[in-house]
């Protein structure tokens, strides 16, 4: 009978495990930081719209985004896409930005109206073009493009504030999982599973897209498909996103995850061997191999979390937004 008893307690504990901790320690502070960082970016742009002036606050905002940017539930279900529209497989961002600038469209001068504009012209990746792409970044103070940059940053700050406020409300929905009146999460473990799905989805996206897209095939590597490569951020994003997934896993667990910590350390060690943080040298077989190894470490980290956290809590990931083609 002793074994049966142990069996029962093992499965009794984890029902709502870690949801309050994940929200309080990682997710809510993450959205709060992103709101502050986008506000600082907007303030900087209103003072001086030039690429040199907004480069640092833009990077700080992107850093903040990596901590919560791959979450696709609650306010982020739809809200994340207009902050970070990527990958842009059909070149929408340069086309839509180019059209706005050529037409000197009024929508680009009004942050409130701009919230209705195509997501291709909004958020972090539109700003990346304006700051780093030679086709866009030669604008002068006082030009339409300068105003457009101010509009994009102001609208992005609005999105940051809206996400932050939205998550304060959504956190209450997650915390009341299984209670009467909660129609979204019918049991506590559904909220746990939702967060668990998000962090595994993030690692999957990093392996398949952040690393898989620039790798392409051996015969046809695609360096310009790397995420935010013009800004030199591809490797940084991979690492920050992985760190964030592990931080969420730790908070969700409430117990030590030594295997996961070790897997993350191996991932960082593999990253240290990469010369070009933009992955622009993946046409060189040796450089390519190092990026492939990094990709394997991201997948290994995901497998480790599944075993160490998912296994312990009896959790399996649900469907995520990357499922499909």
């Amino acid at each position, binding site marked *: *009978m002793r074994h*049966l008893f142990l069996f029962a307690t093992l499965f009794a504990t984890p029902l709502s495990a870690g949801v309050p901790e994940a929200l309080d320690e990682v997710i809510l502070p993450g959205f709060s930081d992103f709101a502050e960082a986008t506000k600082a970016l907007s303030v900087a742009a209103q003072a001086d719209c030039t690429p040199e002036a907004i480069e640092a606050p833009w990077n700080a905002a992107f850093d903040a985004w990596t901590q919560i940017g791959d979450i696709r539930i609650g306010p982020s*279900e*739809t809200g994340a*896409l*207009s902050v970070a*529209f990527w990958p842009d*497989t*059909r*070149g*929408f961002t*340069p*086309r839509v930005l180019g059209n706005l600038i050529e037409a000197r469209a009024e*929508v680009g001068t009004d942050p409130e109206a701009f919230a*209705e*504009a*195509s*997501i*291709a012209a909004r958020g972090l990746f539109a700003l990346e073009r304006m700051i780093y792409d030679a086709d866009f970044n030669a604008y002068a103070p006082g030009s339409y493009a300068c105003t457009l940059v101010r509009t994009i940053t102001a609208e992005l700050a609005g999105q940051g504030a809206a996400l932050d406020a939205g998550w304060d409300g959504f956190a209450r929905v997650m915390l009341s999982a299984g209670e009467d009146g909660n129609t*979204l999460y*019918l049991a506590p473990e*559904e909220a746990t*599973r939702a967060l668990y*799905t998000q962090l*595994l*989805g993030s690692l*999957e996206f990093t392996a398949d897209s952040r690393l898989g897209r620039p790798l*392409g*095939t051996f015969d*046809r590597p695609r360096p*310009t*498909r790397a995420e935010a490569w013009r800004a030199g951020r591809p490797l940084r994003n991979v690492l920050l996103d992985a760190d964030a997934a592990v931080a969420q896993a730790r908070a969700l667990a409430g117990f030590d995850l030594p*295997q996961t910590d070790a*897997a993350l350390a191996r991932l960082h060690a593999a990253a240290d061997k990469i010369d070009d943080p933009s992955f622009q040298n993946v046409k060189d077989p040796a450089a390519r191999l190092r990026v492939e190894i990094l990709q394997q470490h991201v997948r*290994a980290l995901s*497998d*480790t979390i*599944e*075993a160490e956290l*998912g*296994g312990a809590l009896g*959790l*399996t*990931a*649900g*469907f*995520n*937004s*990357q*499922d*499909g*083609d």
Partner: protein
Amino acid sequence: MKFAPSTALAVLIASPAFAVEKAEVLTTYADIAHAGYEDSLTTAQALQSAVEALIADPSPDTLDAARTAWLAARDPYQQTEVFRFGNAIVDDWEGKVNAWPLDEGLMDYVSDDYEGPTDENDYAALNIIANPQVTIAGRDVDASKITPELIADTLNEADGVESNVARGYHAIEFLLWGQDLNGTGPGAGERPYTDYVTGDDCTGGNCDRRGDYLKAATDLLVSDLEEMVSAWGADGDARQTVTVDEDAGITAMLTGMGSLSYGEQAGERMRLGLMLNDPEEEHDCFSDNTHNSHFYDGKGIQNVYLGQYTRVDGSVVRGASLSDLVTEADPALDAEMKARLDTTMAALGDIKAAAEGGFAYDQMLAPGDEKGEALIMGGVDGLIDQTRTIERIVTELALDDVAIEGSDSLDDPNAVFQ
């Protein structure tokens, strides 16, 4: 008493004896798939005849008949999309017939404001119909004869770019309708029948090659569908894949339903297009048939759950269903699933009705169009809600430790440490 604990344990862990056998549910599933692909094939054969008539005698009537045949062929096909995810045999094949979105300039002439080669695709404006000799990724290609082989082996996904779609429904759609140049305003593509008239009255240039292309692409579609009909036949490998292991088969059914509902249809096909406000981000963008394409995708998901499919001739394939299986485990969960599928179908039905009433799907994508946004988001919300219930069913049927090909989301949680 000595045996009591182990007996108790055995009772605890023994599978409930289902009156509905999983094997029967899977048979229904495979039968519906087979019937759906058969209907797709016969309607594609009708399209093939109509295309031959158009090429033999181009006129407004023969063009119209070919378009009508294409539209009719879409309805059964879209109901089969639910069989893709979770079954690699289908998913690996699917890109041959339904790849989207496409850089149509690969195939034929396009408007002046069409983006030329892009960052992602050097061949977005290759125009194979106008150019019998081309170079693709450093290799000279002789395209003087447009054949199914040329399309399949050389043009489709040329240079490894997915949007180089040279075959399938959407390639044919483009050849029948042409680009929709109305933006988010009313109207679909307006390709004139004279694009297929050979001799002096030819418009758009190279009408004979355009006819060759249309014929080759249609023949290819028919042979591709023949392949899938046979894959779901009595000894077909797609059927084998889902029937050989019952739990894996049931998981494949649910994976197909969930992945199509959420990541694919709600996300990639509906919400993304809405947020981009781009009329090309609609699934059937040349013909303005997107409302039907979405509706029948949703219908296919419902078909799989209810274990019934109404064929193009009006007859019904039905049998033991996932719904029966869930009812035995938890009747309330079955009721929840049915209600959510109904809600989604009502929302997709609203989009269809609005489009048929003259408010086309691309008009719904216009920036700031609140009515269109509400219609589309109604469908998106319904699809997301039903995905949550599908997840509950996976848990309820205790299928969550089954590893499934084609879905990273229902992965094996017992993966070994590496």
